[in-house]
């Protein structure tokens, strides 16, 4: 029985249980006792008990049976010899599995040939691709595996259905005026909500796991010390014949580039964003505010690649020519520079800073404002001496959040700051960032399991850790700030 069919039947049982449950509850309400829960809660409870455990079981069963099947195949395979035709044991098993999957595509009454050579055209006709490594002895094992799988599937389906019906009965027997069906249903809902909120954690775990394995592999060939403290980024192209995976994987130039560009971006975004927020919160008439605020927010809606293209095509050359005109000769601003990238990124971040600080500034209680104005302070004095200092921790938190955005930005930097991993203090030169290198090492022509590619994962984890720390700090600061007024 296919899982889909089982699912459908379970759902049907659930629906029936719902209606019976509700009906029973209605029937039992004769007015003598005040029922605890309304009738439909009994229905829902019956539905949930009929469906949820059964689904859970089905899922566990399916996972369990695939594990069992794997072992089964493993056991059935002949002992490996040194000159085994197939590269590895794991591959052996997976060959059998795909063979078994393929066999299912064949019509039931097809006569199975004994050799793979004969079998392959049959399968190919059905659109099943099999590795040429597949051996003849695997065919009976695959057939056997399919049979086992069928059996397991049938048992699983039956058990699931029994559980579903049992759940429904259990719930229906519970129906009574004082039964707390609502509480039960709500407890399950709460679990559902909790599950939804753990997705954030699962995502994080997923991210870390998806990078961890390769990171470890990377550190097998490059020592962590030379990665974290190396000052030269020069992962040599694994030149043909040179067999070289040598190269220098120093994080420092990338990290400093990342921080430098983020710093320049903040230098643009923070004053501009903050002043816009202040002006909008304290001075602008509602009319101006209602036009300007959304307009500024549009800046946040423009895809970063567009910013990048703008930086390369328009801003970079403009700045270079400008600097050339200023010195009357050679330009001191390169076409690609930290300055350009930071500037453009800063513009992108203006709305982020301004909307965060807007919230924070308006959160400063009116009493503070009144207190200052009541003493005869002008508005700007009030803002500078009372509101901003009071909002400072919140603003710092906001800036940290913005900074972590800046650190994670890719496309702008790729285009505007270049890819050269320099270590320089001159903002008018090119530098590059961690994100850029992640993208480049992953999408280039490099050998895929060489350290040159694997380093991308190490960089990814580093970056992840970096933003995590910044967020924790930001959260801590914002929390503390919030407490001040509560």
């Amino acid at each position, binding site marked *: 029985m296919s899982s889909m069919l089982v699912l459908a039947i379970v759902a049907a049982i659930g629906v029936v249980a719902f209606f019976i449950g509700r009906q029973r509850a209605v029937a039992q309400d004769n007015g003598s006792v005040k029922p605890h829960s309304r009738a439909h809660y009994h229905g829902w409870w019956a539905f949930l008990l009929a469906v949820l455990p059964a689904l859970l079981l089905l899922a566990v069963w399916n996972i369990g049976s695939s594990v069992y099947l794997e072992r089964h195949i493993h056991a059935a395979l002949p002992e490996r010899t040194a000159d085994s035709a197939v590269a590895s044991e794991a591959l052996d098993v997976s060959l059998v599995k795909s063979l078994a999957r393929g066999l299912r595509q064949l019509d039931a009454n097809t006569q199975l040939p004994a050799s793979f050579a004969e079998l392959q055209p049959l399968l190919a006709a059905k659109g099943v691709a099999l590795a040429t490594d597949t051996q003849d002895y695997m065919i009976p094992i695959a057939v056997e595996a399919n049979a086992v799988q069928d059996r397991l599937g049938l048992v699983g389906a039956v058990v699931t259905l029994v559980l579903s019906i049992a759940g429904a009965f259990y719930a229906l027997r519970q129906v009574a005026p004082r039964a707390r069906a609502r509480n039960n249903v709500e407890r399950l809902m709460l679990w559902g909500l909790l599950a939804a909120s753990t997705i954030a954690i699962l995502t994080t775990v*997923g991210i870390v796991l998806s990078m961890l394995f390769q990171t470890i592999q990377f550190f097998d060939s490059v020592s962590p010390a030379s990665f974290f403290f190396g000052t030269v980024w020069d992962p040599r192209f694994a030149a043909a014949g040179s067999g070289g995976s040598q190269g220098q994987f120093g994080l420092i130039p990338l990290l400093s580039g990342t921080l430098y560009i983020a710093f320049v971006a903040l230098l643009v975004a923070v004053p501009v964003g903050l002043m816009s927020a202040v002006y909008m919160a304290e001075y602008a008439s509602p009319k101006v505010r209602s036009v300007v605020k959304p307009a500024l927010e549009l800046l946040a809606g423009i895809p970063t690649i567009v910013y990048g293209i703008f930086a390369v095509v328009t801003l970079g050359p403009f700045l270079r020519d400008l600097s050339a005109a200023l010195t009357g000769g050679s330009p001191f601003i390169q076409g690609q520079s930290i300055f350009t990238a930071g500037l453009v990124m800063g513009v992108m971040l203006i709305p982020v800073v301004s909307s965060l600080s807007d919230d924070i500034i308006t959160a400063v209680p009116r009493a503070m404002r009144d207190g200052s104005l009541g003493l005869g302070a002008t508005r700007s004095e009030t803002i500078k001496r009372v509101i901003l200092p009071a909002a400072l921790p919140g603003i710092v938190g906001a800036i940290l959040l913005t900074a972590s955005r800046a650190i994670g930005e890719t496309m702008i930097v790729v285009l505007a700051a270049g890819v050269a991993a320099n270590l320089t203090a001159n903002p008018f030169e090119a530098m590059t960032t961690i994100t850029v290198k992640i993208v480049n090492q992953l999408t280039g022509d490099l050998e895929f399991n060489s350290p040159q590619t694997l380093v991308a994962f190490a960089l990814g984890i580093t970056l992840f850790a970096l933003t995590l720390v910044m*967020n*924790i700090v930001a959260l801590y600061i914002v929390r503390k700030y919030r407490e001040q007024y509560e």
Partner: protein
Amino acid sequence: MTDIPLDTMVRAAAPARRDIGLKARYAAERRFRIYGVLAISVGLAFLAIMLITIVSKGYTAFWQTTVTLPINFDEKIIDPSNKRATDPDVLIKANYPKLADKALMAKLGIDPANKPMALKLKGFLSEGARVQLRDIVVADPSVIGTTRNVDILAAANLDSAFKGQIDLNVEEARRKVSDQQIAWMNQLKGDGTMAEHFNKGLFTYGASSRPETSGMGVAIIGSFYMMVIVLLLALPIGVAASIYLEEFAKKNRFTDLIEVNINNLAAVPSIVFGLLGLAVFINFLGMPRSAAFVGGLVLTLMTLPTIIIATRAALAAVPPSIRSAALGLGASKMQMVFQHILPLAAPGILTGTIIGLARALGETAPLLLIGMVAFVADYPKTPFDPATALPVQIYMWANEAERAFVERMSGAIIILLVFLMAMNITAIVLRRRFERRW
């Protein structure tokens, strides 16, 4: 009691005016305001400059040059041996470009026997003419033998020349368009055969290696699928998570952990989500490559934090008095949340969702790793078929060697921006409309 005239009133002593530095303070005040105005102007100026550069570069992409030719669907060329009744492949393999070339030569008055001249016509009409004419014939074989006016696309280079984008001062050998072709072009332009039309193809064609027949059809469909998936997944999950965190969770280590996680995920570089998608959805769960479904899942994970943060803010903005009112009546917390808080927070949640969607719509990097940065010519019928997305199309066109693609890229950026702005403006209008002052 105060009806006496002021001058007869008791005069309180006016104390000597103190000097409280008003002049300087008002100057500072004015300066401060100017800083504010400046800051806003900087932001708006950048917005304006960017929009202007993009629009001025890309608006021409919305026009496409076509040549209207009376095509004679000559049976001798399409099906010389008259086999189409038995072998339908004949209609597919026929030499359709020849039909177009013949018509063009007739129009220009070139003798088909004049081979060198005929050769110069190469690259005047789009290669896409083959498919265009074939589709006409396959759809209705009865046109064979008749003559019809058909709008044939001009090749990309001619299109550029027609729009005046090719520098004619460069020596001929270095140009993609010859002087002869320019002359013909002007001739056709003169008699109205060659003209610019609105470029429908930009919206309907799939990917192509020829600029004039490439469009964003596949990308639009792919983006649409992804947005639907993101909406269907991220909205409910995000709302559920926010409800838990805002209404039920006790403040403890665990909720702190979730909170830090959510904030952090909002800042994680998007490419990292691509790595996650590749590792989990494609490699571990065996989902298909290049599929909008996987893209949608990845973008869902990316959008979730945005939605959660916005939703929590919206929930928190519902005043506690509503909560107490519901609880005081004997509503359970669940009932309170779903029957009162959630409906009241809906506009805020919607706004956050739209902004999150807009962000997801503009995202390229994570799609790179799950195979969605690809050449896909056929429309995806389901979310599981290979597809691309709008920003991906921009990215790919940006990397093309042919200049005509650059124009398309700018056009595509305009379209994407229009979508994004429409979404953002919807969000803003929604927020304004439902903004509640408690």
